[in-house]
């Protein structure tokens, strides 16, 4: 972690660090501190008076059925997105690992959605499932499915889940493929010689060796579903209908920016920060394991 040979300037390193630290201090630490500070204050509706209220804001939101509903909704959403983004990605990676012919074509096409903005991905799926003009909405209707994501909450939820997962498959595919390609061929050959079939080889050799990658991706996907899907939700449903797709990060935005409830929004921010910190720690723990295996 330390180099033996270094330069001996006194001032230069500080100058080199200054731009990064200045931006970090002004736009990261100051606002984060302020979120902490505001989360223990309450403002009257006209912004005239501010009062210290301790943990009152936290007590209020944790007792608010709307907030608790959003917590469960987020958990459901994150779980669904994670599963739907990881399982197909693993299947595709296993297949891509087996083929030689056209492997580059598969890889190139499958990674493209990674480059697409969540909001744009949302717009693409919104178009396909739009009740008036969407091709897939039409298909579902002709199959007799009653589909209307603008009115039905669970339809809207299904739509944002699928759009979010679609975009994330590319990322998972790349990491699973890299993980698969680092498994020593000799192990697989040994299993073959012992008479193991493809599926048996997968479950007894490949999958266990892949578990560090899987755990790592699990955390990354949960983080993605919690935070990066804001664009999908905002562009596709705006949290609706009737808050059916209002996940936590959208609620912080809505309560703070639209409804201007500063104390509540800050307290929600602090809770989200705690969640990110927890997830980041998990991520680094798993990475350490990955390095050792």
């Amino acid at each position: 972690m330390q180099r033996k040979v270094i330069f001996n300037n006194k001032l230069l390193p500080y100058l080199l660090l200054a731009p990064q630290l200045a931006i970090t201090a002004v736009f990261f630490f100051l606002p984060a501190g302020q979120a902490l500070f505001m989360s223990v204050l309450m403002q009257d509706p006209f912004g005239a008076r501010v009062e210290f209220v301790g943990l009152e804001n936290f007590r209020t939101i944790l007792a608010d059925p709307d907030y608790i509903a959003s917590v469960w909704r987020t958990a459901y959403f994150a779980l669904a997105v994670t599963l739907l983004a990881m399982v197909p990605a693993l299947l595709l990676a296993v297949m891509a690992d087996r083929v030689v012919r056209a492997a580059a074509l598969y890889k190139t096409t499958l990674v493209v959605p990674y480059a697409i903005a969540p909001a744009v991905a949302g717009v693409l799926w919104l178009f396909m499932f739009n009740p008036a003009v969407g091709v897939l909405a039409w298909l579902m209707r002709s199959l007799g499915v009653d589909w209307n994501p603008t009115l039905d909450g669970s339809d809207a939820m299904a739509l944002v889940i699928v759009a979010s997962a679609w975009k994330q498959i590319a990322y998972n595919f790349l990491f699973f493929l890299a993980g698969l390609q680092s498994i020593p061929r000799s192990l697989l050959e040994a299993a073959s010689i012992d008479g193991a079939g493809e599926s048996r080889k997968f479950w007894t050799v490949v999958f266990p060796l892949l578990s560090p990658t899987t755990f790592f991706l699990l955390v990354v996907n949960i983080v993605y579903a919690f935070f990066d899907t804001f664009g999908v939700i905002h562009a596709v449903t705006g949290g609706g209908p009737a808050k059916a797709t209002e996940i936590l990060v959208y609620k912080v935005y809505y309560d703070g920016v639209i409804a201007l409830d500063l104390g509540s929004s800050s307290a929600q921010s602090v809770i989200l920060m705690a969640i990110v910190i927890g997830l980041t720690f998990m991520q680094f723990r798993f990475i350490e394991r990955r390095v050792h295996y």
Partner: protein
Amino acid sequence: MAANRSADWLPHAILWGGLAVVAFPIYLALVASTLTTQQIAQAPMPILPGPHLLDNYRDALLRGGIERLSPPVMAMMWNSLLMALVITFGKIAVSIISAYAVVFFRFPGRMFFFWCIFITLMLPVEVRILPTYEVVSDLGMINSFAGLTVPLIASATATLLLRQFFMTIPDEYVEAAKIDGAGPLRFFRDVVLPLSRTNIAALFVILFIYGWNQYLWPLLIVTDQNLDTIVVGIKKMIGTGDATTDWNLVMATAILALLPPALVVVLMQRWFVKGLVETEK
């Protein structure tokens, strides 16, 4: 052998299925961008391209969306490109010098500063929306290009990646530079920078996509149409009532919004995969 036969076609079949799911939404957007609004509205729309490709793209690029709620797409693309490039090169510049300071010098507070940078990983915009907005507003940077880009320029990811790479530069290089009388700035320019080329290329891909795809931050900071980026602007082109949306123009805009980052990923795939896998280490 029968088993080998099935092992031969099955992966290809599954992969083609995957490709279809991944490509279908993009294909449909492409088709829709060559049709008229009426053709799309007749549900189901044709699934083969129509003849209006040029008209639609010209209309979107030069005139913008419904009721002129969004500026011409060309202007928004220009804003997006500028924002993405400033964020990308800003992040790389700021990170490369701070990683250099942390690795090649010994000074009081070194680890403390390193942790300060590291910890920003845990503070994405999404968790500090309002207070960050207020800081930017206090600085008078709302509705400005600086407000759009500067707050996003700090990067723990890039600093960590470059730091890790700098650790692998052999001590002999530093010694040789010292014997030749080269100072730290000279060593940075003549040795470290050229050696970092592939790492910079890898970071470029990841950060360009990050910059181009920004959504929440421009949404907060920009109310002036002239600063709208394409990723945020596209939503304004979708009307709340279905009848008012020119879906052909929206889909043309979607294609224009995804094309630059998709091209960067496809053309720079080698560096992209390297960057993606290494920034997560």
